[in-house]
């Protein structure tokens, strides 16, 4: 190439780029009112909830594109919004459920099909359940929570009859069938795409649908966009109103708000608390905040080693937390306070419930003196940087307040990727964290968070035989439907947890969602993801 040619050709290319002479054709009239545009901060990393490391957005894809045998009914919550009802189990893919002494039998709906047209049979159900209990990791763990553990438990009696043989009596078994994990997969399609190393076709289902749910994925751009089309032959429930759902990832919180306010996006969860407070006040959008069931933000103190082994010190800390300031300055009122009850005695069977601690520095100082550390001590407080928006100001307020009773805190910011690793080591003296359980039973929460089995979620390493006895008693009483014993046990562990206070409950978070006024039918689900099937757009 010659120099002059090069210069000339560059000029020509530039001119060509600068003057595109193409005009838009008449915009194709898309039926926008049958299409929902949902936006979120994070994108799903899989279409399959069984996959290794499937993230929370992936639960949403799975929930809307697969069916379960059973699902939960609906009720109105205290503010009149739809709320799933964990006490009402309704059929989804199954037509009915027959609970026997040692087994549960299901009849499948006649004529139900997978997205590719294959009829759904009991064989598919068995294959799917076998898969969930075999592949390990999260699905297997979740199945175990309902005593669903071995493939031998699952029997395909005939094409439309499926039976689960029970290993033991467990009142979590039926609720556990309606969580996202026991989804029904197209076994023939999966087997066709399985390999020797991957007998359960995990690679295939990660990027391809194999279900028969109300929606199917029509465009899948990981990290960017998911587009769903309605599956018109769906038999799992009433046909959804929305024909199409587009889900885009918008990483910037400011832009998510701008898109909603301009009316370009229809619905979004992830916004900062302050934005929700302002949007709610402005009343241009519908904002619904639902208390996240069975979830708490708390301050945990290591009960096994370090300065907080003495319950008196823990109580002193509980009296020195600036509860009100946290509610106002950190959460902008977007949460349910869990402090300031009249005493530390359980008021009922619901969980979470308020404890009796308030900010009372004089009392805290007295307790510190009683514990033999009137001059306080130095220690560190750790938090997950991945949730810094709430955690960081919260820790700073706590630091400021604890200084008044002589506890000098150094704040330790742990990168999100490392947080679980640090939790597993169980050597952080003081942390703030959240924990929530899918299944809304107090003993389920306490089994993970307070029991001496010392699960990951017992971040305080709290071990007390009395506590374990209460929790175990509640589980047994629950399985045998022994109401009186159950009540006594639940009240017992709640009272003990308040008195010994290895973790100080701060507040119950709200799941906030903002949507256009024309969107109706939003329903809160325990998995905290969006269910498109009930939504409609005016």
């Amino acid at each position, binding site marked *: *190439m010659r*120099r002059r040619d*090069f*210069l000339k050709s560059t000029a020509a290319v*530039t001119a060509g*780029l600068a003057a*595109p002479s*193409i*005009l*838009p*054709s008449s*915009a*194709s009239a898309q039926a*926008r009112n049958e*299409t929902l*545009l949902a*936006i979120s901060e994070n*994108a799903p*990393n*899989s279409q399959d909830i069984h*996959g*290794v*490391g*499937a*993230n929370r957005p992936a639960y949403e894809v799975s929930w809307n594109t697969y069916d379960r045998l059973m699902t939960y009914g609906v009720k109105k919550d205290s503010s009149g919004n739809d709320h799933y009802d964990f006490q009402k189990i309704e059929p989804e893919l199954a037509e009915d459920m027959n609970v026997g002494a040692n087994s549960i039998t299901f009849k499948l709906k006649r004529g139900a099909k997978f997205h590719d047209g294959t009829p759904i049979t009991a064989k598919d159900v068995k294959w799917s359940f076998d898969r969930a209990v075999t592949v*390990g*990791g*999260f699905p297997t*763990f*979740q199945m175990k929570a309902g005593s669903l553990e071995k493939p031998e438990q699952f029997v395909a009696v005939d094409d439309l009859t499926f039976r689960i043989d029970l290993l033991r009596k467990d009142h979590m078994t039926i609720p556990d069938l309606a969580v996202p994990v026991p989804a029904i997969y197209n076994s023939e399609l999966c087997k066709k795409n399985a390999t020797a190393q991957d007998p359960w076709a995990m690679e295939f289902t990660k*990027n391809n649908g194999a279900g028969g749910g109300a929606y199917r994925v029509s465009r899948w*751009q*990981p*990290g*960017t*966009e998911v587009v769903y089309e309605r599956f018109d032959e769906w038999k799992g429930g009433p046909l959804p109103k929305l024909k199409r759902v*587009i889900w*885009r*990832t*918008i*990483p*910037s919180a*400011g*832009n998510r708000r*701008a*898109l909603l*306010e*301009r009316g*370009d*996006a229809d619905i979004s969860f992830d916004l900062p608390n302050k934005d929700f407070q302002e949007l709610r006040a402005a009343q241009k959008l519908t904002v619904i905040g639902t208390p996240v069931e069975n979830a708490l933000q708390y301050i945990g103190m290591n009960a096994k080693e370090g300065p907080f082994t003495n319950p008196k010190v823990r109580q002193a800390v509980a009296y020195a937390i600036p509860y009100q300031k946290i509610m106002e300055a950190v959460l902008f009122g977007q949460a349910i306070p869990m402090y300031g009850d009249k005493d530390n005695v359980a008021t009922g069977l619901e969980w979470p419930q308020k404890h009796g601690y308030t900010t009372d520095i004089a009392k805290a100082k007295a307790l510190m003196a009683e514990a033999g550390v009137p001059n306080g001590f130095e220690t560190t407080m750790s938090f997950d940087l*991945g949730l810094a928006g709430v955690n960081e100001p919260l820790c700073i307020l706590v630091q400021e307040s604890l200084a008044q009773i002589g506890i000098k805190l150094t704040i330790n910011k742990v*990168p*999100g*990727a*490392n947080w*679980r*690793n640090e939790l*597993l080591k169980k050597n952080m003296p003081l942390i703030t964290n959240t924990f929530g359980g899918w299944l809304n039973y107090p003993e389920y929460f306490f089994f993970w968070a307070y029991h001496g089995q010392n*699960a*990951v979620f017992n971040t305080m390493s709290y071990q007390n035989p009395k506590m374990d006895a209460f929790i175990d008693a509640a589980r047994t009483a629950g399985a045998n439907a022994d109401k009186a014993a159950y009540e006594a046990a639940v009240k017992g562990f709640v009272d003990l947890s308040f008195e010994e206070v290895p973790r100080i409950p701060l507040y119950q978070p709200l799941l906030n969602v903002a949507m256009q006024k024309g969107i109706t039918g939003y329903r809160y689900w325990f998995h905290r993801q969006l269910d498109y099937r009930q939504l409609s757009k005016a």
Partner: protein
Amino acid sequence: MLSLILNRLMLAIPSLIGVVIVTFLLTRALPGDPAAYFAGPAATEQAIAEIRAKLGTDRPLIEQFGRYVKDLARGELGQSLTTGQPVSREIATRLPASAELTLIGLLLAVLLAVPMGILAATKPGSAVDHITRVVSTAGVSLPVFFTGLLLVYVFYFRLGWAPSPVGRLDVFLSPPPHVTGFYLVDALLARDGEVFVGALKQLALPALTLSIFALAPIARMTRASMLAVLSSDFVRTARASGLSPAKVVVTYAFRNAVLPVITTLGMVLSFLLGANVLVEKVFAWPGIGSFAVEALIASDFAPVQGFVLTMAALYVTLNLLIDIAYGLIDPRVRLDS
């Protein structure tokens, strides 16, 4: 020419090997255990160990490295855990998005900065000179995410001129069939005017944001090198011979001043490609920078390694292209080599 290219490529090999080793070690030195992260919130020790075995991170470092190099030799960059896709596929789809944005941004910057620099140099101390200085100082000192958010606020939220910042295309348009991965080019090839205009509209704000940032070095370099050339003997001679001012500035002075500007362009381009993470975040652009940062947050090794390696290869290629362009623009460079 061919020997020059071969020579440069040979020189690039050791640096690429170095990059492979360093990124491998660096990612392993990062705090955080991907297995603990991806085992999910309900993980037990045993579940994490299972995932660790699946990922191979329980093996000795040297064995992991051996496996990594073996995969690399077959062109496999591993799997991204955050998006669940092979890293090579992710990079192949995301690099064009970043490149398209960066090139348009750079083009805009050049169209603005070069005339500004020339004008400033021909009339130093004048109003134009001062404006150039203010604009370029502001451009380089305002953080890109701030300029980006400001532009979104004004042009999208307030005025409603710009389309919603939802990525490369409006939600109701489908991407053009994949040929180059550049939506503008692909839309032209598919003769789809609507998608072309849609893609161009989406590009406008992010490209403008980038160009404001890239303006400063280009304008300043143009001004400085023009000043040097304008005071040289041959320009004085040209002026004395009675050539028109336009002819003197454009034909004689600018052509001689353009070499340092090209060098700066190369630097700015490679810098923008990797550093437009924030612009990508603000405009929900599915580019390579935001991909790498998300992977880093999740201590997801494979994409980080793939990203650094790709960037290294790009730098090498870019430098080579700039050297070739030098030779074409200024024959003296060719004679010297």
